């Protein structure tokens, strides 16, 4: 049993995992598929199809253009309707997308060839290549290209690989369900990941509010050398990469641009491991994922969703709204993005769709800060959100930078706990943007 350390700050949330008992079902083929070229951290992919082309499931429609990028594949067979700008829910602005009209047959592209069931026959390079060709990204939300994650710099040996099944966001149950139903596949993918980075030790981390998942994973890892299980006390935001490393290993990742590599750790989400397993066995690239559709909907569910399926289609599938909808959130209630419209597609990083009713939406006006220090006590990075926000609100971004605005992971705990309802995360985010812009301008001046 691994002795866990305390998380700095954080908060215990009412987890509302109302869909945790629902098995994952296939959501079906929607009438329209919208595949953004930018669904991941890094450079957007370049569309390689044009309107009128017929595409098959698994076929490349967008090609990765650089090292930190990921290809995009058609999630079902059909005709390309257009390659055009659509409203991107995360970037909150129009962005290039390939729009496909499915033919409903779900034919598989001939390039998808079954791979290997035996990891020992694969070299680390093979595994990385498969992850790259599958367009695999982290499915926990940040959507960082997996191939990049699996290629740590040579001078930074990795001794532990953490498999993140914490799923600390309230409402979301996609990872928990996946662990219950596909534990063996996850462990298969995880073994491959460990091999790719050369990690001798792997730890599966699950919060204690998912007993079924813990049981399933315990069974799946038994007899697998080097893989252990770590059960965590439920606390938000433990599922954050840095937080998980702190809690499980007692190590602290250096501030940005520091990465988990620097302390010999790689962290991946259970969903990513599952998708990698699928790519290894069947050769099928990342074309679907599990999405939790929950909150104020008729029947909160976990769906296997083809990437590019519209949110409105999923809400319909989950029984439609109950009550007047107030907010539709892509992601969890703490870090998700509230959508202005529901005709936007599911992306690779979409963990869930949470619907809040009008009454649940908090519209309190922010009051002056009363210096209660709650934000400070609860920041998992031990920052001082109160000062960062105060300087940011006054346009004093340099001061905000001194208080390490750039370290903030936007977990939202500070704003959650603020009794004055101050939009702290928003203020910090503005400061971050201003600081980055300033840096870019400075860099340009130097180079020009």
């Amino acid at each position, binding site marked *: 049993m691994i002795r866990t350390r305390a998380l700095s700050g954080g908060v215990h949330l009412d987890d509302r995992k109302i869909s945790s008992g629902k098995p994952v079902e296939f959501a079906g083929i929607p009438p329209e598929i919208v595949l953004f070229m930018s669904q991941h951290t890094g450079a957007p992919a370049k569309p390689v199809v044009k309107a009128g082309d017929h595409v098959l499931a698994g076929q490349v429609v967008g090609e990765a253009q650089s090292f930190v990028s990921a290809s995009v594949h058609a999630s079902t067979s059909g005709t390309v309707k257009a390659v055009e700008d659509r409203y991107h829910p995360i970037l909150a602005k129009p962005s290039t997308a390939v729009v496909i009209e499915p033919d409903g047959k779900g034919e598989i592209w001939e390039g998808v060839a079954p791979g290997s069931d035996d990891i020992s026959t694969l070299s680390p390079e093979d595994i990385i290549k498969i992850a790259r060709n599958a367009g695999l990204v982290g499915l926990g939300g940040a959507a960082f290209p997996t191939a990049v994650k699996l290629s740590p710099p040579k001078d930074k040996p990795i001794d532990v690989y953490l498999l993140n099944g914490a799923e600390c966001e309230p409402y979301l149950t996609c990872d928990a369900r996946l662990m219950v139903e596909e534990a063996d596949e996850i462990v298969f993918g995880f073994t491959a990941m460990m091999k790719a980075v050369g990690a001798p030790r792997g730890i599966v981390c699950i919060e204690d509010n998912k007993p079924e998942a813990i049981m399933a994973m315990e069974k799946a890892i038994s007899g697998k050398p080097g893989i252990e299980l770590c059960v965590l006390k439920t606390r938000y935001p433990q599922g954050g990469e840095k937080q998980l490393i702190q809690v499980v290993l007692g190590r602290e990742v250096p501030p940005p641009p520091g990465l988990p590599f620097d302390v010999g750790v790689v962290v991946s989400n259970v969903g990513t491991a599952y998708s990698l397993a699928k790519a290894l066995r069947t050769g099928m690239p990342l074309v679907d994922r599990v999405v939790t559709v929950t909150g104020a909907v008729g029947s909160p569910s976990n769906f296997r969703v083809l990437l590019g399926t519209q949110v409105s289609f999923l809400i319909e599938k989950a029984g439609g709204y109950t009550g007047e909808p107030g907010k539709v959130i892509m992601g969890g209630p703490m870090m998700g993005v*509230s959508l202005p419209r529901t005709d936007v597609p599911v992306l690779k990083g979409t963990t869930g769709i949470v619907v809040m009713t009008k009454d649940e939406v908090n519209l309190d006006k922010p009051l002056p800060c009363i210096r209660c220090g709650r934000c400070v006590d609860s920041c998992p990075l031990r920052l001082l959100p109160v000062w960062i926000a105060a300087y940011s609100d006054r346009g004093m971004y340099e001061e905000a930078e001194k208080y390490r605005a750039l370290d903030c992971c936007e977990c939202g705990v500070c704003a959650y706990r603020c009794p004055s309802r101050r939009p702290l995360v928003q203020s910090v985010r503005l400061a971050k943007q201003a600081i980055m812009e300033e840096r870019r301008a400075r860099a340009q001046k130097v180079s020009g």
Partner: protein
Amino acid sequence: MTERLVVSPSPHWKTDKTVSGLMLDVVVALMPAVLASVVFFGWRALTIILTSVSSAVISEAVYEKAVKREVTIKDYSAVITGILLAMNMPPGVPLWMPAIGSAFAIVVAKQIFGGLGYNFVNPALAGRAFLMAAWPLHMTRDWLAPGFFGGVDATSSATPLAVLKGAPGGTLPGIWDMLLGNRAGCLGETSVIAILMGGIYLIWKEVIDPRIPLGFIGTVFVLTWVFGKPGALFQGNAIYHILSGGLFLGAFFMATDYVTSPVTSKGRLLMGIGCGVITVLIRLWGGYPEGVSYSILLMNLVTPLIDRAMVPRYYGWKHEARKEKTL
């Protein structure tokens, strides 16, 4: 699409703890002490408290109306100021004193600086300091011997602290009387148990950080034990020192005031210890018998400095690196 959706930055959840909720918790926590004061000093105590509270609330409303600010009396902070100020008065004061003190506390110490969140000293303590400077005789002489429900003697009697300091004609009450509150003193100073109940409630509800009261009381205990007796070390009457005067009231309810105490946990511990040190300095070697309120006021003034100095070690930062890169 027919639905009209709210778009706002994350997080989309907020605690249900609001400013007024927290303040209401403090009001609730003060109730045992209010009750105790009524038990020991009779209805007169209640009239003082009510006068003080209504004056505080009315001043806040009138001032905010006058300067066309949003009226914030619903956040209960003025109520707390009113109660705390009353708690800091001897039971024999004339009623106009709490009225003026509260008005001063709210208008001069709080609203002029911008209202809740912007005041730099605790308004109730500023009000008390003003009254103390303006009408020192009333504030230091109108003690009453406690009696149950209105059975109050009109004679003045020395407080335990004055006795400790060598005031003539007084004897120390027993420990039990000190704990329960059967002794002379300000309205809220008397019953340690009542205040402790409120304090524990606040800590349990996570309204206040225990570091401040514990640091405060602990420091006073240790220092008075070591230096409490002139000419001999380690023989001071520490128990009496921590039980007497406004120490518990100050430590749990006034030093912990959010606006005027540091935001970091290290800073709060320092605040508590600092208050303790200053209190002991005043009590043992200063001109006044009691130093709790001045110690808190002084620490209020250095709170911004503490906030600058007591920055936590950010996640992933080494100590040296932080010093270089930040302040």
